[in-house]
């Protein structure tokens, strides 16, 4: 049977078990939309802005573990999607983006809606393809999904000129396997390195496990739990790792890094053996690299060899899938006796007693931390929580104690404001049975409010928790600390009436101004199972995120709420952002 390129593309996507595509039509992809319209297996979600499509596919991928799929047109279609693609790239999220391109003969002629999509996206995709022949469509789609979802996952772009979607050919066979001589991801760790790591682990007296997003993306949460409990070692997690190990477990010290807990950061600083599992020693984690873990031997488990030794020199490097390496380590450590670490635990308990997440409540003022604690209580800690970027993101990470992976969805690497709402929509489509909350702020939410319209069209009920303090809070906090309270452009005048905004999009809006009303409003919102509810919560405009390691300081130089209200920073620190 003869098919056109668009039909082959759609069949190839079906062959990859794609169920949802997030996209927006335009001239270069009209044939593809025509082919999509003629079938019922794949549901297309029509977003209101292509950046929303990429974030929604991203949220979908993070919640489900599947590859998120995006379809956009040429020119502005793909350039609008770039922020979303870069967001997925920085957090290693599997995604396939299909972009239309002007017809092959016009490429390079500055044609209408032409942009060099492959060139523009090169530095923010794992790989990209420009299809030059109809016979390449099926095999390219196969490769794209393989590359996106294996090894260290990431977004892959397929740019397809319009004439190729129109051309006809005999229907190809859709191969089931991919073999690429230039792409052979490593799965298992080297046995010799595993043995060396096990020896180091057994001899350490002040160990700490530092687990990152790789444990979530690599579906290694069960192995991480078994490994940690087998050793009875303290564990801390990065922003991206939250949920892989249960936050309510006794061995968990909380998040580490710039806004991590006192006990997590102090333990990192004083440790003699740091076991990094699927984490990449990002600058938000290490703080001042010269002061990072001065006495520790470091074991680094990561699927990406280029992550190892990039920021921090390590003593034992194990390249492999976190899941497989942890299984091997569990076996290697079975029935082995670790050193006595009871003194270490007593020290940690002392640090823990500082209670670094304590905060002062004030009569009549809603504290943002209380909002997250209430959200946790009302949802029994079982919701999927997405966030935007800023103070609210940190509070959500600190006070919503994630016990399961794939429930905390945020832009950790790129730090993209506007991510939260479309990501929540994508997550709800992936997990319709779960409550989904989007923790945001009045700054971030305004970058993507148009997706409220999409959420009505596809009935993806999400609860929007808007921590409205009238400020770009994280910017304001830094200006307070490091710029002598000169609040340049961090105050948002002329905010919309968010209740009316939500209502105009067909959703429910509730404004909460008194702390006494908070819990009831939250309960009411989550009772509305099939409605999106926008909770506009007026919070303390002066609240800051604590604890905090100011830029340029070490893990043992944290500032604590109520104790070190005013941070200081040296010139070197200012440079670090």
């Amino acid at each position, binding site marked *: 049977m003869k098919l056109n390129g668009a039909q082959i593309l759609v069949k190839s996507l079906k062959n990859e078990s794609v169920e949802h595509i997030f996209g927006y039509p335009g001239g270069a992809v009209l044939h593809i939309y025509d082919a999509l319209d003629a079938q019922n297996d794949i549901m297309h979600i029509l977003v209101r802005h292509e950046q929303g499509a990429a974030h929604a596919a991203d949220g979908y991928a993070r919640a489900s573990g599947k590859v998120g799929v995006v379809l956009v047109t040429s020119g502005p279609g793909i350039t609008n999607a770039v922020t979303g693609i870069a967001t997925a790239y920085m957090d290693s999220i599997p995604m396939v983006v299909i972009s239309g391109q002007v017809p092959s003969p016009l490429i390079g002629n500055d044609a209408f809606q032409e942009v060099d999509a492959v060139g523009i996206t090169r530095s923010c995709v*794992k790989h990209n393809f420009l299809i030059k022949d109809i016979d390449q469509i099926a095999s390219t789609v196969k490769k794209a999904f393989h590359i996106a979802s294996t090894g260290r996952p990431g977004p892959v772009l397929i740019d397809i000129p319009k004439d190729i979607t129109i051309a006809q050919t005999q229907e190809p066979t859709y191969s089931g396997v991919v073999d690429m001589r230039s792409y052979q991801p490593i799965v298992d760790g080297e046995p010799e390195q595993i043995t060396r790591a096990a020896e180091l682990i057994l001899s350490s007296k002040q160990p700490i496990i530092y687990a990152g997003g790789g444990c979530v993306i690599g579906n290694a949460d069960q192995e991480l739990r078994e490994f940690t409990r087998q050793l009875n070692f303290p564990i801390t997690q990065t922003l991206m790792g939250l949920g892989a190990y249960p936050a309510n477990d006794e061995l968990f010290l909380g998040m580490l890094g710039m806004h991590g807990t006192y006990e997590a950061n102090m333990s990192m600083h004083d440790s003699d053996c740091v076991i990094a599992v699927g984490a990449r020693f990002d600058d938000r984690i290490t703080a001042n690299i010269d002061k990072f873990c001065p006495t520790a031997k470091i074991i680094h488990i990561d699927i990406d060899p280029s992550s190892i030794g990039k920021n921090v020199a390590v003593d034992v490097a194990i390249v492999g899938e976190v899941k497989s390496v942890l299984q091997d380590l569990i076996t290697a450590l079975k029935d082995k006796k670790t050193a006595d670490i009871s003194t270490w635990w007593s020290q940690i308990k002392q640090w823990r007693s500082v209670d670094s997440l304590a905060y002062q409540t004030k009569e009549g003022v809603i504290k943002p931390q209380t909002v997250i604690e209430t959200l946790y209580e009302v949802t029994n800690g079982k919701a999927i929580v997405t966030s935007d970027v800023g103070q609210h993101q940190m509070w959500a990470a600190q006070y919503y104690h994630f016990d399961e992976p794939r429930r905390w969805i945020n832009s950790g690497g790129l730090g993209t404001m506007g991510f939260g709402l479309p990501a929540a929509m994508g997550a709800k489509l992936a997990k319709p049975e779960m409550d989904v909350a989007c923790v945001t702020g009045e700054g971030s939410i305004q970058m993507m409010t148009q997706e409220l319209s999409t959420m009505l069209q596809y009935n993806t009920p999400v609860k929007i928790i808007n921590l409205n303090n009238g400020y770009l809070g994280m910017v304001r906090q830094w200006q307070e600390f490091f710029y002598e309270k000169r609040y340049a452009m961090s105050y948002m005048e002329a905010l919309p009436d968010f209740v009316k905004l939500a209502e105009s999009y067909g959703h429910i809006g509730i404004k909460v101004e008194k702390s006494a009303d908070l819990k009831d409003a939250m309960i009411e919102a989550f009772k509305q199972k099939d409605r999106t509810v926008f909770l506009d919560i007026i919070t303390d405009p002066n609240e800051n995120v604590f604890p905090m390691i100011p830029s340029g300081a070490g893990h043992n130089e944290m500032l604590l709420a109520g104790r070190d209200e005013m941070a200081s920073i040296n010139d070197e620190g200012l440079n670090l952002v």
Partner: protein
Amino acid sequence: MRHIISVLLENEAGALSRVAGLFSARGFNIESLTVAATNDLTLSRMTIVSVGNDNIIEQIVKQLYKLIDVVKVTDLTATEHIERELLLVKIDVNQNTQADIDKKIDEFSAKIVDVSEDTYIIELAGQSKKINDFLDSLGAFKILEVSRTGVTGVCQRRES
């Protein structure tokens, strides 16, 4: 330290810009870069000369491997290897200078590949140092144009 990195990669459109883009995005230095298809036309061989400390060179090698099109990366400077660069230089020649220039060409075993009324085009292959020395030795004469290919190299072991 100077390193010669040999990269075997899929002979696909855009492969060169992936490598060039990687170096500029990550702030790695490129002294020279040469590329051409190998005897297997589906593969290209790229030879990159870069300067950096061990950590930087290790990152360059790892980041190159991360490119999906890259099949194999070898740091030639870490092993016994042969390196060559080709120079073509156009030089002004007249009655007063011809004998001296001919002498330099002999000294360096270079080759005249084109002669006109008042110019030579000279070809010289060798290690970069030899080419630098040759160009230095022509310093007293009027060089009209210099074109160098950049370094290419091969590992001396049978299996690289």
